[in-house]
């Protein structure tokens, strides 16, 4: 019997070793350990073994079965690892094919710039206001120290709706609306659309401005420089320098144009800044006391600074847009660039 058991064990060993797949292995398991397997046959013949040898044969059979089970388990582990490997390898895909995406949209570049500038001023304690685009001549001009015969009106070609109602030519009208409504201290910016009847590669009849106004005690020209310098550093870069040039606006006195060092060349001179090293970004000044008085604010107690900037000009330099008209063409290929 022992010879027989050893033979079965050896057969099983070689068959397990020869199993190339989990299926072969399972066949081997059935053949040797199954209900109708070879060991079952041995056990069935146990009655032919002398009674005193039976325990020994039983023990040998069990030991042989354990050995085979162990061998099968080991082989099973190896085979299943191998098969998983093969499966994974067969599942390889071309990872350079494009992804299945749902395209993300975009804000208009003008909105992006307005948001960025608004965030800077919010950080400096400014409220963001809204105001009407169709505005009275009174708020757009007269209360801003620009009466009807004033030659400064030539600086802005105005769209009229009636003698007394205009499309606002500047967001400065919000200075008046804010000061009539709110007591100092005031710190506001007002982004919005403005309109002037001028249309070519560098002028659009509709464009955007952001107006800023601070009304408080002891506001000075130094504060204006400090505030706008801080703003320019945040908008462009920390090394940006700011300078004033004298200018004229009817509602500020003194009035200045504000230049910053070119964002492209940082002051060395390049085509963007026409080799001057500087870019003009906004107009500003100390609010003319007449404007404060027009709004019922005591100009002996309070003073104010104001500034106004064109968004398109900043957007055009920031993104290198070649022609103002492209900004409002609404071509998707232009717009989706600003995702």
């Amino acid at each position: 019997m022992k010879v027989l058991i050893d033979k079965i064990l050896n057969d099983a060993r070689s068959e397990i070793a020869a199993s190339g797949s989990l299926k072969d292995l399972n066949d081997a398991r059935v053949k040797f350990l199954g209900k109708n397997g070879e060991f079952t046959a041995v056990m069935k013949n146990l009655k032919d073994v002398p009674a005193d040898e039976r325990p020994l044969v039983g023990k040998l059979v069990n030991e042989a079965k354990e050995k085979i089970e162990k061998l099968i388990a080991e082989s099973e582990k190896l085979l299943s690892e191998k098969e998983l490997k093969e499966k994974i390898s067969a599942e390889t895909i071309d990872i350079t094919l494009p992804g299945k995406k749902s395209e993300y949209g975009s804000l208009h570049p003008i909105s992006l710039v307005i948001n960025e500038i608004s965030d800077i001023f919010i950080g400096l304690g400014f409220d963001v206001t809204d105001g009407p685009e169709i505005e009275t001549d009174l708020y757009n001009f007269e209360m801003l120290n620009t009466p009807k015969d004033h030659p400064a009106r030539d600086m802005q070609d105005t769209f009229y709706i009636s003698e007394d109602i205009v499309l606002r030519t500047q967001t400065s009208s919000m200075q008046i609306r804010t000061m009539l409504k709110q007591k100092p201290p005031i710190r506001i910016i007002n982004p919005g659309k403005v309109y002037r009847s001028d249309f070519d590669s560098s002028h659009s009849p509709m464009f955007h401005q952001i107006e800023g106004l601070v009304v408080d005690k002891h506001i000075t020209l130094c504060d204006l420089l400090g505030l706008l310098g801080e703003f320019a550093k945040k908008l462009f870069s920390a090394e940006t320098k700011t300078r004033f040039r004298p200018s004229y606006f009817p509602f500020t006195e003194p009035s200045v144009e504000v230049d910053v060092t070119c964002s492209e060349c940082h002051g060395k001179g390049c085509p963007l800044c026409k080799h001057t090293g500087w870019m003009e970004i906004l107009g500003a000044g100390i609010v003319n006391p007449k404007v404060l008085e027009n709004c019922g604010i005591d100009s002996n107690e309070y003073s104010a600074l104001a500034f106004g900037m064109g968004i398109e000009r900043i957007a055009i330099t920031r993104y290198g847009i070649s022609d103002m008209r492209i900004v409002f063409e609404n071509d998707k290929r232009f717009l989706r660039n600003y995702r």
Partner: protein
Amino acid sequence: MKLPISWLNDFVTVKDVSVDDLSAKLVNAGFEIEEIIRQRDMRKNIFTAKVLSIKKHPEADKLDVCGVVSKDGKHFVIVTGAKNIKEGDTVPLALDGAELPNGKKIGDTVFRGITSQGMFCGGEELAITESDYKGASVNGVLIFDKDTPVGADINDVLGFDDIILDVGVTPNRPDCNSIIGLAREAAAVLKRPFTLKELKYKTIPLKIKDYINVEVKDDVLCPRYMAAYVKDVKIAESPIYIKKRLRSVGIKSINNIVDITNYILTEIGQPMHAFDLSFLAQSKIIVRRAAENEEIISLDGKSNILNGNMLVIADAEKPVAVAGIMGGLKSGINADTKNIVFESARFKRDSIRKTSKALNLKSDSQARYEKGVDFLSQELALKRALSLIDELNAGVIAEGFVDTLAHPLKKTVVKTTAKKINDILGITVPDKIISNILNSLEIATTIDKNGNLTAEAPLFREDILNANDLSEEVIRLYGYDKIVPTLLNDAHQTRGGKSTFQKTNERLKNALIGCGFNEIISFSFITGKAFDLLKLEQGDIRRRAIKLLNPLSEDLSVMRTTLTHSVLNAAAYNINKGNAEIRLFESAVVYLPDILPLKKLPNEKTRCALVIAGEKEDFYTLKGIIENVFDIFGTAAAYVRSKEAYLHPGRSADIYAGAIKIGSFGEVHPDVLKNYGIKDKKVFIAELDSDYIINSAVVIRKFRAAPKFPSVERDLAVIIDDTTDASTVVDVIKKYSGELLEKINVFDVFKGSQIPEGKKSLALSLVFQSYDRTLNDAEIKACTDNIIGGLKKEINGELR
């Protein structure tokens, strides 16, 4: 304002200052230099040459070969086709490397084997006219006078030797639209004296009043009228220096008298007019408002019909000039003029502006008057004119002036303190420097030991009214580079931020961006035809749009009452450019007037318009986007079939929140697509009331725990009439479901072989949920039985 350096030098010494340095200083003082024109750079390397020999070109019938002597006594060979020269003539010769005013560059050129070492020039090639040099208009080569030096730079011969600054003058400084105004500034920035020479001239003992009678009938529109009388005038050409100066500022020389008025307009900034006395009936000058429908033919030959708001200069019978703007056709200086009256007046600025605009009549005088003329200039201008008459020996000057000054002249005195000026600036400028700067600008200033400042503005500075004006004068000369940055040191702390409306609108925009939309921005003014393109009914409220009085064009003439036109335009633009897949939105206001014409400001309402087109887009993708947005803001919306004329009647919906219509959307009507030039393409649009969505938005959502007990899902397929809307089925189910129904979703519609004709099958999934127990089958069955019964009863629905 064109500022020739040589002219400036009459009033302040600048000859020894570099032009770049002067320009930089003027920029720092508030005068932009738009251009520096160096006349010599316009005609480079062109010299006078004497023609020594002229021979026929051996190979070309039409060409001659000339031997000339020119620059540095050198000899040159020039091939020319010009026929008007002869041996001994002196002509302009552009040598190798020369550049003509039109930008043409000259080099050695070979003509049939003979090299021409340059080119003879005609007047046209040199961009000069007869008034620059006699003979300049001759067809052919310009021939200089016999005594012209040979080998000379033609800029010296023609007098193109000046440098001209083109100065930008801001509207607060009308005085600087003159040579003397800018000279005062140049003197101040250079810290040099400004000198106005004493103006002298001979007069004869004739009283002007005996020759001319001036009467001002409206001293508001004409606060000062001055006149001078010159008899026995000799009309002639102006001397070279006057011609040259006028040419350098772009004014054509006419004759000595007209040139004098233009010279003074430039130098002093005072418009003048010269009347031929023989044309003034009864020798009268009456400054009056025009009669209604009075006519005057102006100098340019145009007939002008006047009205009572317009000021004219008239004689005893008729208007002879539109005051300050243009003289009449028959009152001006001509070759036979003998006796003249010089007018030097101040007219009200806005009166000139309005009249000029109404008559569409423009002139250099009118342009200057609109900027503002001070009270100092009238007398100065007359004296200067008479000194020139004397200098040119152009006539005999009567004694004295007519002067109708209505009110005594008063200078503005500003009383303030040095501290106030420094408070505006934020730095401390020493008292001495403040007073020095102001005095250098002729603002007579004293500061006492307590810091009290008194400043008297000169008559030519009507812009100086308060301490802020003085502070600007101080800092622009002290230097803006002295300002040091501070950050609102004394100001109150404020909290800033956006309004809830602004923040919510940004969320709305961001939601759309998440759905793949690109934001567009279109013009707020649209074509008046938009409402026809959209097929809006005649009575539609959106047709009541605000019109601009002065639009750029008909296409940009009406303030939009809807964004639909704009987004459709954008869609058409993109589709026609080949952008087949688009999702665009615009968030902007529309302008809704209460009454037209506008008496008060209109309502500006925020709207959001969407447009989509492309392979995968249909009514339901657009509706899905809208539902997504409404989910975000908690907008409760109901959909009813739309009657909007621009939408497909079977594929469009109006959106209602209760009784309020908050938008419309759907497929664009094929007729409308055609109107916008969109072919073979479906386009879907929506216009939503952002104001409503934002103002009713759920800002803070209250906490709600996720259910602890499992939900139960049941699918239901129900066969109903084809004409029954899904929303009706949903409404019935909700009515019969009881409170356990948590969610209901329509997931399929099927029509086909297994469904009877005229019917459709609607598949719905129902989710039942209890928050306090696990539901059992019996409970669910009771619910669904009830629903099935309800469907049968209400809409004859059968389970499939």
